[in-house]
């Protein structure tokens, strides 16, 4: 019951954010038309993609080096779920960013440092899933994927420090900037923060659901394997005993 109530609350919260983004927040100065409103969705998507990446990294480290119990498959499922969701939110951040970039900068794409970073994150997430697909054995798959995610975690700071130094940026930086203060109209900031909180909560809610679902399908697979007789004759029709339902 508690879960359902929380989910309804989240639904109301995000509905309020959508209303706020279009009705409550004013338009930003120097932006063409209504284009500044996309910020209330674009920034949270990028933020959540980052949170997802970090969640996957931490879960992978816990899988590899955790001791209670060692090699807990739950951490592996958490890492996989986070990478999948990170891919979804990353694509949304890229698409919303590209649309806005077309309006403001005249081109969908121009290798802005943040565009470079998000593309590398997307490629990394894709590579992680490709690696999982290429390994049959469950334990080995979890171990190799976790090691790769940990390697990704080590390389990430270089993107943060190196890429912006090499190329210049047109990206607006009212919140994250070198000047160390928030430069945004108060009502816009309220909606942006509410949206960030809402989408972060949405991520963790979806992440919990996906992790549980992966756990359930692992359990179902395990039960099916346990139910099957050890020396079952091979069924010519291809349906192994115990998998008929």
């Amino acid at each position: 019951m508690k879960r359902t109530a929380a989910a309804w609350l989240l639904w109301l919260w995000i509905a309020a954010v959508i209303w706020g983004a279009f009705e409550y927040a004013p338009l930003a100065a120097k932006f063409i038309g209504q284009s500044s409103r996309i910020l209330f969705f674009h920034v949270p998507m990028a933020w959540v993609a980052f949170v997802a990446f970090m969640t996957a990294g931490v879960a992978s480290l816990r899988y590899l080096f955790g001791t209670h119990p060692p090699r807990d498959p739950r951490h592996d499922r958490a890492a996989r779920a986070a990478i999948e969701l990170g891919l979804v939110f990353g694509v949304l951040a890229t698409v919303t960013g590209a649309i806005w970039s077309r309006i403001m900068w005249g081109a969908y794409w121009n290798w802005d440092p943040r565009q470079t970073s998000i593309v590398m994150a997307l490629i990394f997430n894709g590579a992680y899933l490709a690696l999982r697909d290429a390994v049959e054995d469950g334990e080995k798959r979890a171990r190799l994927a976790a090691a790769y995610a940990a390697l990704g975690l080590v390389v990430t700071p270089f993107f943060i420090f190196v890429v912006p130094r090499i190329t210049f940026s047109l990206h607006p930086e009212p919140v994250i900037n070198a000047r160390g203060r928030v430069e945004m109209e108060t009502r816009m900031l309220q909606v942006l923060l509410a949206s960030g909180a809402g989408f972060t909560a949405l991520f963790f809610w979806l992440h919990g659901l996906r992790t549980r679902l992966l756990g359930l399908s692992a359990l179902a697979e395990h039960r099916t394997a346990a139910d099957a007789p050890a020396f079952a004759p091979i069924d010519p029709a291809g349906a192994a005993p115990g998998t008929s339902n």
Partner: protein
Amino acid sequence: MSRPASTWAREAAAVFAKEWRSELRTRYALNTLALFAINTLVVVSASLGPLGAAPGRATETLPVLLWLILLFAAAAGLPRAFVHEEETQTATALRLAATPSALFCGKLAYSASVLAALEALVAPLFLAVMNLDVPRPGLLVATLAAGGFGLAAGSTLVAAIIAQARGQGTLFAVLSFPVLLPLLLLAVELTRAAFAGGVPGGPEGPVSQGGAGVAMVQLLLYDGAVTTAGLMLFPVVWNP
């Protein structure tokens, strides 16, 4: 882990020697890497035409081509280090014989030396074919050394991962690209600085704030970070 350091170093050296001995028997990696690199170099040079890259653009674009040649040559030859062990089923013997971290260091030293040999072959050819003067040869050598080592360090861990998976050739490229990209960006930036030479009024790298010094420090940090990560992660990748 409890073994004395001298045993560890001897194991690493033994792995390094074994890699070179079996390599010299078949010369598979050396031939593949060298031919691959020369083929790409010929393609690049021939398609630029008899005049080469336009003088104003040469220092900007040619470093990219040099590092792409090195990257793809490495991707063609280096995954072999571990794939070969799984194919010939010698991996189990190696698991019994050597400490994982010593094994990683031996393999890394082997990959790094192969890449250094490749660079010693390709870089002079590249400079000759492209008709390039290098105002800062020291910087170029340092970049090739640090970049080659980083390329070997990243590839060795990724090679250990993909050796246990299916579809190894394509998977190596897919997995190593996001890991090696910071290295390539830095190496290209430094090579540009070496070619341009900081001549007053000459072409500068695109906004290289802080100059070559900062980039070199970052490249060395990258090498250190990836090697450390490899040493920590390799045991869990290698041992089931």
